[in-house]
């Protein structure tokens, strides 16, 4: 779909990642890459290790084996702080917003890595810190316009309906001006209309800002529609990798989803 700006340079590559918790293996020897500018979907049945994979990419989990190459730099594991400050932003499967804070403040926290004025100025709430605060506020207002959430700007997010919270969470991730955006089931639990909105936002982010996106999603219609390439995990292993059409035609994938009779 977005082939026209899908370059061939790789933004992130995971090599032979294995991750286990105690005796339970979550990911086993998985490798794939994410190219600059593409929408990359990670799919698979429940418990396939998709969310674990995202957690490895942004440094929440540290794999026992394998390595991650991001922007040409290879390391055995990422650290959350490092990932965030180098342009990886994400949303969560079970929304992780700051519930007591307003929509505006939540999205402002996303600017954390881009705001640099030191604590002394901030404590005095004076000089450069004040100017900086205004500039970032302006940027955040653009995001609010883009996501069409002007009306809930001042509402504490704990009071918002589920679909709106998902949208605010996307806003917070966008506020960091990420190079790589990780979306963990951005459309889960949404009705058809909300899903359509979210699809539109994801595509717009990808096309207008050129942001590379890796997303986990269960809605196959959505996945096949918006992604450039799809990687399929099952029981922690990679069973297929390719364009939506290739994946759809893959017998292993069909078996994994529909079950296979061991007759």
């Amino acid at each position, binding site marked *: 779909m977005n082939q026209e700006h899908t370059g061939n340079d790789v933004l992130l590559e995971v090599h032979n990642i294995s991750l286990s918790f105690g005796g339970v293996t979550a990911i086993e020897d998985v490798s794939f890459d994410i190219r600059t500018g593409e929408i990359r979907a990670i799919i698979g049945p429940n418990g396939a290790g998709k969310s674990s994979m995202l957690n490895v990419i942004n440094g929440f989990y540290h794999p026992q084996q394998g390595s991650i190459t991001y922007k040409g730099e290879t390391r055995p594991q990422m650290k959350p702080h490092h990932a965030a400050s180098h342009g990886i932003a994400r949303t969560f499967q079970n929304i992780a917003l*700051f519930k007591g804070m307003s929509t505006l403040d939540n999205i402002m926290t996303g600017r954390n890595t881009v705001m640099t*004025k030191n604590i002394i100025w901030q404590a005095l709430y004076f000089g450069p810190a004040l100017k900086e605060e205004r500039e970032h506020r302006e940027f955040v207002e653009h995001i609010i316009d883009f996501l069409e959430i002007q009306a809930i700007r001042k509402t504490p997010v704990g009071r918002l309906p589920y679909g709106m919270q998902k949208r605010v969470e996307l806003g917070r991730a966008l506020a960091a001006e990420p190079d790589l955006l990780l979306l963990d089931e951005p459309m889960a639990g949404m009705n058809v209309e909300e899903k359509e909105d979210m699809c539109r936002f994801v595509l717009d982010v990808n096309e207008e800002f050129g942001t590379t996106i890796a997303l986990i999603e269960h809605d196959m219609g959505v996945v096949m529609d918006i992604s450039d390439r799809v990687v399929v995990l099952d029981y922690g292993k990679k069973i297929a990798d390719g364009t939506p059409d290739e994946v759809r035609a893959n017998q292993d994938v069909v078996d994994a989803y529909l079950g296979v009779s061991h007759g």
Partner: protein
Amino acid sequence: MGSELMFFFETVISGVMAGVMYALVALGFVLIFKASGIFNFAQGVMCLFAALALYDFMAPGGWIDRLFGITLPVWLAIVATIGVMIVVAWLIERLVLQHLVQQDPIILFMATLGLAYVLEGLGDILFGSDVKPLDLGIPQGASDWALDTLGLYVEKLEVVAAITGAVLVTVLAIFFQRTRIGRALRAVADDHQAALSVGISLRTIWVIVWSVSGIVALVAGIMWGSKSGVQFSLSLIALKALPVLILGGFTSVPGAIVGGLIIGVGEKLAEVYFGPYVGGAIENWFAYMLALAFLLFRPQGLFGERIIERV
């Protein structure tokens, strides 16, 4: 004005002032609880430690005197003590908190209990255990102006404490609401994982919040130290802050102030007007009774976030 009414006003005013002093201590608790969900039992000892260090830096025969042969003027001693409290905060994060990330609140609470004893012992070893009069040049005694024009007896020190408290709270409120670090503090309080994902470093935030509450402890330590001397019983004012917190809510800065005022005024009025009927000295336990009543009817306090837990 009748002397009955005058006496009532004097009681209320002295209650308000005492309340501000309680609130100053409670504030330190609220800051740490807000940002990390830890009930810091060591807060009272931090007040003591800060006051001890401050006194020591200014006194002949103190560490600075022994090391460099000089004593610091008041303002420089305050700056140096702030430095000490920041180092203490950094050490606490390094040696204690860092190793207890993701542990239950009760475990962190126990750690602060241990911390209280360590800090108290350290204060004893470094600065000695005798009672020290803290004199920063804060005016003492009754305000002549209030006595002459209004006929009221008002302690000058308590007025200074009230003004200091008001300034401190205003500054903290702006810091929390309007700045990036303030937002990051609130973010960490809300959701650790989400905070990490936007690049907030938990460790930095914890050092900052413990430093800020160390500075608040210094202010409380100065006020209490000026009032009754720097002595080890100072660490027990932490216990008086507990009912304040229960009233105001553990997570609310304004709550700490209002809670402090209610407790301060409440216990003074109770002492004066109900005390005689039950044999007096109810000032000592009235606050806890009030707290108990609150726990029954409004456990989240006046301003705290409603306690909803998923079962």
